[in-house]
């Protein structure tokens, strides 16, 4: 059994959960109570942290508007209005036929993190979770994309946080995205530009994390697209599966 943390609906406290796995169902919690979003801190996304994403931009990294490849980690914020739980409907936009799925491993912190070395970074981690970093497709990442990636419900997280010591090596986990049960994307965190410890260390030189904050390690290239009515599941090896279905925006969440 693996130790995990989650929030049962109607209960504000994060509590201990126990996970089991079977070849039929994958990983499941020993409680059957519906789970709320396990995260309440600030959620930071990381752009261009997969080698394939940089490769896809190729020579464009040296052209306008970018002019040079990124030096420091490129971050963005998924604000509180974006956070929803496993199995909560995703509000579908009225101004786009598609949403892009960003399949991300989320690092959850248990202590304040300031200016840590890569080896110190490990001690600050509570555990790992699954994040669906959604956005409306947009052309480039020159300007902050708040209008495209910070809409209500655009950051499903969960179902739980697997304790660091019971999670697989986060620098070598397979991530699979299914749309309506069909496999649409496979990736592996082996392809990260900065691995988990290095990313935390580099960010913590200018931005401190608080307990409960989350850092997404990045999203792989060729993001799957989903349409109205689709069900999207992100499976991370050893962590679990996060599933949400798109709904019309009027039925969306607060």
């Amino acid at each position: 059994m693996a130790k995990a943390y989650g929030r049962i609906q109607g209960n504000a406290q994060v509590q201990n959960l126990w996970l089991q796995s079977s070849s039929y169902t994958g990983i499941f919690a020993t409680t059957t109570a519906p789970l709320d979003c396990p995260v309440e801190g600030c959620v930071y996304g990381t752009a261009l942290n997969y080698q394939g994403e940089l490769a896809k931009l190729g020579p464009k990294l040296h052209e306008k508007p970018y002019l040079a490849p990124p030096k420091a980690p490129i971050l963005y914020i998924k604000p509180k209005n974006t956070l929803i739980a496993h199995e909560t409907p995703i509000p579908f936009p009225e101004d786009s036929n598609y949403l892009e799925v960003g399949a991300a491993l989320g690092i959850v912190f248990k202590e304040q993190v300031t200016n840590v070395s890569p080896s110190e970074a490990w001690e600050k981690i509570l555990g790992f979770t699954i994040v669906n970093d959604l956005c409306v497709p947009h052309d480039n990442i020159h300007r902050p994309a708040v209008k495209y990636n910070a809409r209500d419900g655009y950051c499903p997280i969960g179902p739980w946080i697997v304790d660091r010591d019971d999670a697989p090596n986060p620098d070598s986990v397979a991530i699979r995205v299914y749309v309506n049960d069909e496999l649409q994307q496979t990736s592996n965190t082996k392809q990260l530009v900065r691995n988990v410890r290095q990313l935390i260390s580099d960010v913590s030189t200018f931005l401190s994390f608080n307990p409960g904050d989350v850092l997404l390690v990045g999203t792989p290239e060729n993001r799957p697209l989903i349409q109205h009515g689709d069900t999207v599941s992100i499976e991370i090896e050893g962590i679990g599966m996060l599933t949400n279905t798109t709904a019309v925006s009027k039925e969306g969440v607060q």
Partner: protein
Amino acid sequence: MKRARIVVDGAIHEAVEYGEQLQLLNGRLVAKSDVQWLPPVVPGTVFALGLNYADHAKELSFQAPEEPLVFLKGPNTFVGHHGKTVRPDEAKHMHYECELAVIIGKQGKNIPRSEAFDYVAGYTIANDYAIRDYLENYYRPNLRVKSRDTCTPIGPYLVDASDIPDPMNLTLKTTVNGTVTQTGTTEDMVFSVPVLIEYLSSFMTLNKNDIILTGTPEGLAKVYEGDQVITEIEGLGQLHNTIISDRLER
């Protein structure tokens, strides 16, 4: 009413300005010099505007944008009145930005500009420091420039919206070590407060204690270790800040 969050004798209190003193909820009066100042509300989602004054956009050799240039700030970046902001010794281009900060008072979505002021709890002053050495052209202005620890002083007070009849006609002023370096008026905003509330709430829900930093006018100047920087807005008071070196942080 001018509302503050302060630390007195090791405890966090809400307080209101009472002449030269502050009054706690239990009625006790304390001297302003005897308290530590926190941001006037615990910040929710914090939006900031780039290039929202035409003169400032020109100063940076940009055209004013056709749509608001919005970015977000993390909770790590805020410090209160009389706080200290860390300047890396290696930086060559650090400057202040005096900004009107709008504090949202209640939840709203799809708010028309005609009703926008109903959603405003009040106003405060923010100093949206930027360290341009770290600018990169990805999600520019990137968080390494704009969401650094201690680099967004905010306060001293939440001044009730009812005490500020026209937020679109307030003078702004920055002084560094007593010398005036920046002046402007909120009249010159490209996108006004009601337009910004309408724009943001058109695609996301705004919540109580979300804050919008509305951009800065022309008049940038570099700041260095030891500088005393005062950002001031008519009717909202003065926000004091001191620049310190990152040598102390290592």
